[in-house]
């Protein structure tokens, strides 16, 4: 049992925090939101320079061979400043899919470009009817003489609006809800037959509805063995849960700090409102929720790479439940303790509130995962 960070991990955390301290004030973030793609291309290059974009990739693909704890530290720091860049979509989700299922040729073609900041990726898996069911895939991939042709529609694809390449899931066989018969395909976002409608999520991050009609994919662009992608998709979701759990912890920290500051400065009835015990205890309960959430994010990071799928799924589901419930509690009380100012667009706390709300509804909400845990009770 060991809860210490290595020196390398501390260096990583410090360097990310320094970079973000200089470049991610609340006002700067507002400017990035106003850029055409809704995030900062300049900072994306800085991330590349600092090695963040290749962090989890093997060295032969321009990466640094980092692990889930490194990702946790980066995502926590991103959560504290509400970073808008497509790190989750590109590096974590698509990076995991490529790492697990990509051939050496595919990895050599794509990962170094990602690491250098020249390519962004999106993981186009969810569909409108699927809600949180990973095997509810209707999009189809039919074999052709040269490869595959894709048809269907993908929904709420995180950062799918601006991604250069998409990793698209589609059925090569079987029916809806069958975990067998799903494949993953690399698709150029500008390929014929790909149409995207982009929009902001409630927290300002970008996403897209993507329709595919008769999209031709070369045989060499199938990712892994077509028809057998479900274990990869599950691991992508698990990696997403681990990463966003850490991001939510960063956001909870920031909300808790803002709330404490407000309790110490806001005067009513001639004294700081933080002198009221009812508010002190609420703040203490927020702290406990934050620390319990942090424990769960650590659990996710420490088990997302575990070899046993059942053990991994169990711990990740617990982490998703724990972080989701904690972040809802912290966020709702952060707004409540701020009173009216917490309701305003101009103040930061509501932005954090919306980020953890969006995170909570990615990859299965707490109720979804609790129900999966309940299935295992015996």
């Amino acid at each position, binding site marked *: *049992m*060991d*809860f*210490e*960070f290595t020196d390398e991990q501390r260096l990583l955390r410090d360097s990310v925090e320094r970079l973000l301290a200089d470049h991610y004030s609340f006002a700067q973030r507002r400017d990035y939101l106003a850029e055409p793609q809704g995030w900062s291309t300049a900072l994306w290059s800085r991330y590349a320079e600092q090695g963040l974009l290749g962090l989890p990739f093997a060295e032969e693909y321009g990466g640094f061979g980092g692990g889930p*704890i490194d990702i946790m530290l980066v995502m926590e720091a991103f959560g504290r400043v509400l970073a808008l860049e497509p790190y989750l979509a590109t590096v974590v989700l698509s990076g995991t899919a490529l790492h697990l299922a990509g051939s050496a040729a595919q990895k050599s073609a794509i990962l170094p470009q990602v690491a250098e900041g020249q390519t962004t990726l999106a993981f186009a898996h969810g569909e409108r009817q699927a809600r949180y069911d990973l095997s509810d895939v209707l999009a189809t991939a039919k074999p052709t003489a040269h490869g595959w042709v894709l048809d269907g529609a993908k929904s709420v694809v995180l950062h799918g609006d601006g991604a250069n390449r998409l990793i698209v899931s589609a059925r090569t066989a079987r029916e809806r809800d069958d975990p067998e018969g799903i494949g993953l395909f690399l698709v150029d976002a500008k390929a014929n037959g790909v149409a995207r409608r982009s929009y902001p999520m409630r927290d300002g991050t970008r996403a897209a509805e993507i329709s595919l009609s008769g999209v031709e994919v070369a045989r060499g662009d199938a990712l892994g063995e077509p028809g057998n992608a479900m274990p990869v998709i599950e691991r992508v979701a698990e990696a997403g849960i681990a990463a966003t759990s850490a991001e939510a912890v960063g956001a909870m920290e920031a909300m808790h700090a803002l709330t*404490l500051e407000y*309790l*110490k400065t806001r005067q009513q009835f001639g004294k700081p409102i*933080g*002198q009221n*015990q009812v508010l*002190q*205890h609420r*703040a*203490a*309960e927020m*702290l*406990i929720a934050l*620390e*319990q*959430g942090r*424990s*769960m994010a*650590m*659990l996710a*990071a*420490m*088990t997302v790479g575990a070899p046993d799928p059942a053990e991994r799924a169990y*711990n990740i589901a*617990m982490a998703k*439940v*724990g972080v989701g419930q904690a972040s809802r509690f912290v966020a709702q009380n952060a707004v409540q303790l701020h009173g009216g100012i917490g309701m305003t667009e101009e103040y930061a706390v509501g932005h954090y509130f919306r980020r953890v709300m969006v995170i909570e509804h990615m990859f299965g909400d707490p109720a979804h995962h*609790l*129900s999966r*845990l*309940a*299935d*295992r*009770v*015996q």
Partner: protein
Amino acid sequence: MDLRFTADELAFRDELRAFIRDHLPDDIRERMRLGYSPRKEDTVCWQRILNQRGWAAFNWPKEYGGPGWTPVQRMIFLEENQLAPAPEVSSFNITMIGPVLIQFGTEEQKHRFLPRAANIDDWWCQGFSEPGAGSDLAALKTAAKRDGDHYVVNGQKIWTSTAHHADWCFCLVRTDPAAKKRQEGISFLLIDMKTPGITVRPIVSIDGSHHLNEVFFDDVRVPIDMLVGEENRGWDVAKYLLGHERTGIARLGKSKERVKFAKEAAHEMRANGKPLIDDPAFRLRVAQLETDIKALEITQFRVVSAYAKKESGKPDPLSSALKIKGTELLQATTELAMDIGGPLAMPDWAQELEALSNEPELGPAWASEATKSYLFLRAASIYGGTNEIQKNILTKAVLGL
């Protein structure tokens, strides 16, 4: 960072597990499994078996008869002992008076009391709370006046757990009523419960048991060599005692063991024509409880490993979080077991069962005991510093409000 225990830690756990499995008397194990609180003789019997192995004083250094374990090893010990399920060693003897004497006691006090505390030859109780001094402990009034080589103690303590079993009481008394700050006039005394002038009166609690007492002191003469630490510095001793390594306070092994038992019991009971264990609402409740236990387990690991790193003895403010969440979870496990019993959990048939031991069973003993535990453990969020006081501590120590 690594969640897994090291090979050494696993070997240590296995050694403990095997020893407990082989040495815990079956009747005690079965009573614990059914949810009875351990009888005095159960606690004494098991603590002596552990002490023979050198493990009863699990958090004491070797030189004083403890095993000299690391914080991680101590955590594993507590968990394995609770999971068995075995009676827990006396907290008054082992985690309270033991560490206090090791830190503040004279050589004579250590020599006289520590081996007997470890072997539970002396049963200790704690004389802190008074009718007018509960959460506001420093308001205590029980007076100790110097008279030659004795203190003469007059006053009253309350909520004194197991005082009726106790041989000795460690007590906070007021030695300087004129002190500027209330905390500065308090001393820490060891009092022989057989001293003339002590009256113990039972308080029956809502679970029907006699666990709590009032203790009255009427001109009780205590030799001055029973003072621990300096006169009027007893508050420092009390603070040390209350803050000393509270990582075991979450009692997670106990909560885990109770959830395990609840799932077994839920196979026996039925709901909507099926075993209760198959009821979706029940399963969700268990899943939520197991998730909350997991979160607190990781938090406990964090606190223990931070403690292991510094070893300064300074309590981690997060231990207040462990106390709050740990007691909430333990209480939730008692509610779960009671609700599984349902109507069968409502009769109080313990006496009937004992009186008619040859008759057929009235109903499952665990169901009646579950309700008793539910009632008894409402105290968990009150004792050891109420959960509201713990939030005050977090407010000051961590939040700076």
